[in-house]
């Protein structure tokens, strides 16, 4: 085996090494620790790009940890889907870390960098693992790190929201374990490829339990993805936490969607008997409600962070609509939308951060304030981020929504999907124009206090601008990206190739 054969394990190993070392370094040598943390992110990005390149030959690679063969040992599986998600995570992480260092958000506590890398460890592991129990473990790793990050910077409000967030996720993990227990009891395996084989051979009497296991698993992933009605934890948590952290969390809900896309076609696919496509009838209504609740939340939010949190909710809803059809073309459109939604959601949080830093005591409240330093730059980036989030031309959100509409046209539920997407987009436009005009256009009442904040450097616009540029690049290269996501969807919807790659039968 050459070194490049070991590359799939790099996204897990690199943060696992960087995190503890930065924790040690931050005690005495803060700048070296910070540099190492950035270096770790750069290495991760390089590895993700390399892995993305590797998967271009359309082969699915399985990496057996400790060289134990698949159904017995633990495997990492690298295919187009995991490589795309790794690349999105690494890019987002690099930009967010840059923003945290530039704005000094990482200085509000000792362990920001260590927690950040542990979070990346969990996210990358969840994307790579080919084993359901390890998916649970990596979920726990990313959740535990997220608890730490969410509470970073302290404050009573944050602690209150933190308790609710932690409790909800512990209950979610408990449900996850029940689903795993049921699946293991039925099939005596937890390797996803092996599960796919054994589920197809289950007898008639076990189909009921299998359906329950499938629905429980769906419920857990829907909770992580904040699908309605399991979304109530999200707006409060994301609005209470630091915007930089919330920007990183923009990918966390998508980890839940990823887990759905990974497990359902593979384990509960066409061959699963009575449990075939078991979440499908529940997912579409939940997605429609999610898009409506999210965009209505955008309309009625009182703060920029709350609004951004609802925008993330809305994007998850919009994303789950095509996913719930479980057809190749719809899935391809969904994947494109997912990548751009991660970038747009994070950009909205970072723009909110840069804006509220300049507004002094007005912070992120959606009320008119006297003119503040850098208002034009903030307003312009807010406009672009809002366009990206709502999905207006010319940015990638529009392309994504258009291809979702196009791909869903052939399916049975298309009138519902069309009316939801078009209607919610309108609500979103109204919501963002309302908040944008009161933030940047309206003049404050004459007796309002002036903004009490010293003008700062414009460096905190770098990271949001990078994300917005990325959004622009995604729109310019839409053709290439669509070709990529189409190939990815084809791979996902052909689970027999995944099984063959992992179990090594007939390559």
């Amino acid at each position, binding site marked *: 085996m050459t070194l490049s054969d070991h590359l799939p394990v790099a996204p897990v190993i690199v943060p696992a090494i960087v995190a503890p070392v930065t924790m040690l370094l931050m005690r005495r040598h803060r700048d070296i620790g910070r540099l190492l943390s950035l270096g770790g992110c750069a290495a991760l990005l390089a590895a993700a790009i390399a892995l993305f390149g590797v998967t271009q030959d359309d082969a699915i690679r399985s990496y057996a940890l400790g060289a134990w063969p698949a159904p017995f040992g633990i495997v990492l599986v690298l295919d187009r889907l995991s490589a795309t998600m790794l690349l999105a995570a690494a890019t987002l992480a690099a930009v967010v870390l840059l923003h945290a260092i530039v704005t000094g958000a990482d200085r509000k506590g000792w362990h920001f960098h260590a927690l950040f890398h542990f979070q990346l460890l969990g996210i990358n592991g969840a994307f790579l693992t080919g084993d359901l*129990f390890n998916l649970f*473990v990596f979920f*726990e790793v990313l959740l*535990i790190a997220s*608890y730490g990050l969410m*509470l970073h910077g*302290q*404050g*009573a409000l944050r*602690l*209150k929201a*933190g*308790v*609710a967030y*932690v*409790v909800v996720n*512990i*209950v979610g*993990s*408990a449900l996850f*374990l*029940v689903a*795993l*227990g*049921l699946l*293991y*009891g039925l099939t*005596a395996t*937890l390797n996803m490829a092996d599960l796919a084989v054994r589920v197809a051979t289950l007898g008639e009497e076990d189909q009921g339990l299998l359906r329950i296991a499938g629905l429980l698993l769906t419920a857990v992933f829907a909770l992580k993805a904040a699908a309605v009605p399991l979304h109530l934890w999200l707006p409060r948590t994301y609005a209470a936490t630091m915007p930089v952290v919330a920007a990183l969390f923009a990918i966390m809900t998508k980890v839940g969607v990823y887990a759905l896309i990974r497990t359902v076609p593979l384990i509960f696919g066409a061959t699963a008997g009575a449990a075939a496509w078991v979440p499908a009838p529940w997912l579409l209504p939940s997605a429609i409600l999610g898009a409506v609740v999210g965009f209505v939340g955008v309309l009625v939010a009182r703060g920029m962070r709350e609004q951004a949190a609802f925008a993330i909710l809305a994007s998850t809803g919009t994303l789950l609509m095509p996913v719930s059809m479980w057809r190749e073309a719809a899935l391809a459109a969904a994947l494109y939308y997912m990548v751009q939604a991660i970038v747009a959601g994070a950009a909205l949080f970072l723009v909110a951060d840069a804006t509220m830093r300049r507004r002094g005591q007005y912070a992120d409240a959606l009320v008119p304030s006297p003119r503040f330093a850098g208002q034009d730059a903030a307003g312009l980036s807010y406009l672009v981020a809002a366009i990206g989030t709502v999905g207006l031309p010319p940015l990638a959100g529009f392309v994504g929504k258009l291809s979702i509409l196009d791909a869903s046209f052939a399916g049975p539920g298309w009138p519902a999907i069309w009316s939801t997407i078009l209607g919610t987009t309108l609500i979103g436009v109204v919501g963002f124009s309302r908040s944008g005009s009161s933030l940047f256009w309206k003049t404050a009442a004459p007796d309002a206090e002036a903004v009490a904040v010293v003008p700062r450097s414009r460096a905190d616009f770098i990271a949001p601008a990078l994300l917005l540029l990325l959004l622009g690049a995604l729109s310019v290269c839409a053709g290439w990206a669509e070709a990529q996501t189409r190939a990815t969807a084809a791979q996902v919807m052909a689970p027999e190739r995944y099984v063959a790659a992992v179990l090594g039968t007939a390559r």
Partner: protein
Amino acid sequence: MTLEFLVASAIAMLVAGGIYLALRGRTFQVVLGLTLLSYAINLFLFAIGRLVVDRPPLWSADVTEHADPLPQALVLTAIVITFGMTALTIILSLRSYLESGSDQVDGDRDDAA
């Protein structure tokens, strides 16, 4: 009464108590509820390897009947994780109580109670 019935009803009672407590409004009860719930889950995971008595989980040439070792490994991991999580919840609710002066999960103080 069979062993299966006893274990199943024990799990059911733990789950019922756990859910009831986890839905309460004060953090202490919620933490207790989560603990009960995690006990129930651990028992459940144990039971998925089928309930058998006096069988070793390790392979050896002269043993023909084994207990399934994997659920025990799963439970071990699950115990470690839930133990850490419970500790975190306790610390978190304590800090939240000290900073906000109320142990209500949902923020507002319940003066009537």
